[in-house]
């Protein structure tokens, strides 16, 4: 009885999380096409890179006219956190062999959060795979739709899809901004990035703001 209740709870939450990423996926597809990526490149990013923040950073910097170096660099630095999630999932679920490869590919914010939240109930593996499958399928489907019809609907500004990324990031950041210190660090990073916008190449302010704020935090912490 309790087992099926847990299964139902996990299935519903996994589906809800999957549906939640679809506006962001639509936005990513539309922004990517606007940045002159072709459909194959857009799909490749969602199938292989499969990490919303990195994908969005990559195409929005390219679309704004930034260098490929800034675009790829920012995407990779944002991807570092998935490695940290991997270390946690590895301890929690102890995969082996080929499972480890598949698991690494779908270790992202959502699947990790669900696996960790279900750890006390002992259903971490089910939570991880359900969420991973739901988000993977719906993210890829919404990306393709965004790429195909996003532009038909008008520019991202007309549809408001130009703020889907930032809004998703705010929601993603919120759980990490529990201390005043972290809030100040986040704010500082944004301000530093904006101050440098008029004077450095497009795309660079994100790296400059992000890295300077981390450096400042480490200096203050010493």
């Amino acid at each position, binding site marked *: 009885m309790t087992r099926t209740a847990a299964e139902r709870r996990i299935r519903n939450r996994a589906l809800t999380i999957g549906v939640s990423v679809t506006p962001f996926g639509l936005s990513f597809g539309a922004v990517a096409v606007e940045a002159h990526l072709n459909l194959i490149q857009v799909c490749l990013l969602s199938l292989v890179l499969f990490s919303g923040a990195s994908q969005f950073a990559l195409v*929005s910097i390219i679309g704004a006219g930034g260098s490929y170096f800034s675009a790829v660099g920012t*995407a990779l630095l944002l991807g570092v956190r998935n490695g940290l999630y991997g270390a946690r999932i590895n301890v929690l679920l102890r995969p082996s062999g080929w499972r480890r490869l598949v698991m690494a590919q779908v270790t992202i914010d959502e699947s990790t959060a669900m696996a960790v939240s279900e750890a006390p109930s002992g259903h971490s593996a089910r939570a991880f795979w359900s969420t991973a499958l739901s988000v993977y399928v719906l993210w890829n489907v919404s990306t393709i739709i965004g790429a195909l019809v996003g532009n038909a609907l008008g520019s991202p500004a007309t549809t408001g*899809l130009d*703020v889907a*990324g930032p809004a998703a990031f705010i929601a993603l950041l919120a759980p990490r901004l529990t201390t005043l210190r972290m809030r100040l660090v986040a704010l500082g*990073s944004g301000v530093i990035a904006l101050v440098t916008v008029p004077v450095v190449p497009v795309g660079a302010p994100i*790296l*400059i703001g992000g890295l300077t704020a981390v450096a400042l935090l480490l200096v203050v912490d010493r």
Partner: protein
Amino acid sequence: MKLWLAVVVACAGCAALKLAGFVVPSRLLESHLARRTLEALPVTLLSALIAVSVFATGSHLTLDSRAAGLAVALVLVTMRAPFLVVVVAACATAAGVHAL
């Protein structure tokens, strides 16, 4: 060609980073410095990305419909609204203000 290279490098690099978590000995990630840096990095990069995607167009600082969308998202996140609500409300607000 360069665009293809950027896409492929980003894909390969991010996939490698995901796998690294499963194979790198966890004690390497346990030093105080590494933990602080890796914890703060996504927060600062996402904040900078938000700021630039909302308040800049190319090399110019701008204040337009995107700011309204961001403000709504901030309020809703503070009220602990669900992710989907935050994103949809922000888009609708930005689209509405843009149409004015």
